[in-house]
């Protein structure tokens, strides 16, 4: 019951709530982190002996808070507070006490802690690193490995991010409804950054960063537990779950990226897909579609098709059209074009693609898709020209090889 693995999981699970409460109490990130570390050390000593507390977060908040205050008092030569041995004997008495301290503010504590990491002044990489360090409790070494940079460089990046956050005014008063919903939006975006950082484009990166995807999903579920009626948080969680479900099928044995249409769907994780679909069903009931819900619904449509040929392209095209309305971008339109070509054929799709030429002239996928459409329409010369441009813009060898294969088929 108190084996090291359990204690580790309990400390990780309690971390956002505990540091969030300590941050509110001390209003300083470093002090809150130190107090939490202190409490963890005491937990490692106390829990194996006294058994795990019923509510690890409450225990850590109380002990961490007392440890930090104790330090202050000791420095000013006053009486020490009772140590954690005595505290753990209180057992259930600790729960209502901590409850009184933190229960009512639990939700805003965790949200604030997550929100601290998405300060608009912080570049995306720093937001991610800070969240992984503070909220998830990953070591600098682990984060450095995930980002494929040296430990010292990562240490510096995190220190700089923390300094910037400390200078910024972290809002400690209880947020109003509008502000709270803005924070949820910012946190959702940050969590999706963490997820995408983990969703590497090559197998080595995907291997090293895979845990980032799982961490993003864990924090997203946490956010959803705090805001259970927020359809965009349901959508975000579903989107991550369904994308992550495909991880085993994304690379072939040579390490090349496998396109969705070629993936072995038997390798998709049905448990993650089931959870994602359940969340989308819940979100739809709210009738407040947003970008995460729509992207999740698109991923879900793919997940529901047993084979690529069974894909409901008309449905996907409609979802992209809706996404275009809530989040207009030429790339979304391009994806809609690809779906339209499957649903209605190359002619309609080409007509939709042409107006994008100006905006997407430097975009690999645009020329690749345009080439494929022209090829289907029998306009081989124009297709070759488009494919040539795509090859020139390809970011990876795999992308270029994929287009070259299409060119070969043109001349065959």
């Amino acid at each position, binding site marked *: 019951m108190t084996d090291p693995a359990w204690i580790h999981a*309990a400390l990780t699970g309690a971390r956002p709530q505990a540091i969030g409460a300590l941050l509110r109490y001390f209003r300083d990130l470093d002090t809150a982190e130190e107090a939490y570390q202190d409490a963890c050390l005491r937990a490692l000593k106390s829990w194996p002996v006294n058994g795990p507390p019923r509510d690890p977060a409450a225990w850590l908040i109380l002990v961490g808070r007392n440890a930090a205050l104790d330090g202050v008092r000791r420095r000013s030569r006053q009486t020490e507070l009772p140590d954690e041995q005595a505290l753990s004997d209180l057992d259930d008495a600790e729960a209502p006490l901590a409850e009184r301290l933190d229960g009512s503010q639990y939700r805003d504590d965790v949200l604030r802690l997550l929100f601290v990491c998405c300060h608009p002044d912080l570049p995306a990489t720093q937001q991610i690193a800070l969240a992984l360090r503070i909220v998830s409790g990953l070591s600098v070494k682990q984060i450095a490995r995930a980002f494929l940079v040296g430990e010292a460089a990562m240490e510096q990046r995190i220190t700089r991010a923390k300094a910037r956050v400390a200078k910024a005014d972290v809002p400690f008063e209880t947020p109003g409804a509008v502000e709270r919903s803005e924070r949820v939006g910012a946190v959702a975006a940050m969590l999706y950054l963490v997820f995408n950082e983990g969703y590497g484009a090559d197998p080595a990166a995907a291997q090293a960063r895979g845990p980032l995807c799982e961490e993003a999903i864990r924090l997203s579920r946490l956010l959803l537990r705090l805001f259970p009626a927020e359809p965009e948080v349901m959508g975000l*969680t579903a989107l991550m779950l369904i994308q992550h479900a495909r991880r085993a099928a994304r690379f072939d044995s040579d390490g090349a990226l496998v396109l969705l249409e070629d993936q072995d769907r038997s390798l998709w994780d049905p448990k993650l897909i089931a959870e994602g679909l359940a969340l989308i069903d819940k979100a739809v009931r709210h009738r407040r579609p947003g970008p995460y819900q729509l992207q999740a619904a698109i991923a879900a449509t793919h997940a529901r098709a047993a084979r690529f040929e069974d894909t409901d392209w008309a449905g996907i095209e409609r979802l992209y059209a809706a996404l275009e309305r809530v989040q207009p971008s030429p790339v979304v339109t391009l994806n809609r074009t690809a779906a339209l070509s499957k649903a209605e054929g190359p002619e309609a799709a080409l007509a939709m693609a042409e107006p994008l030429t100006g905006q997407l002239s430097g975009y690999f996928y645009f020329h690749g898709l345009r080439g494929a459409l022209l090829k289907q329409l029998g306009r081989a010369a124009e297709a070759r020209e488009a494919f040539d441009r795509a090859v020139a813009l390809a970011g990876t060898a795999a992308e270029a090889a994929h287009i070259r294969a299409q060119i070969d088929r043109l001349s065959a």
Partner: protein
Amino acid sequence: MLYAVLCYDSEDVVGAWTKEQDDAVMASLGEVQAKLTAQGRLGPVARLLPTTAATTVRKGREPLVLDGPFAETKEQLLGFYVVDCESLEQAVETAKDLAKASGSAGAFELRPLRYYQPGSVGA
């Protein structure tokens, strides 16, 4: 008598398990299940998706549909077994076996069944 063994644990903790830890727990619970099956005592077994996937319908003249689980608790209902036990004593022993195998904190609530209909839905 048939008992429902209701599994309660902190979702925060279970959610922080690595895949390897989760797989290991499921495997060692599987051993207990295999033993119960061999004894002809195991009924339906279910592990529930996280409470974030839950929806609650509050009864009333106009039933109210709410997101999330029925109760906000420190520990959540994460799954259940139905096990045939000769006595409460045996049910307690079974729960202890499961507790040893699960290696986490949390609790098992033993609730004798009053009505049982195994149904016809396959796995």
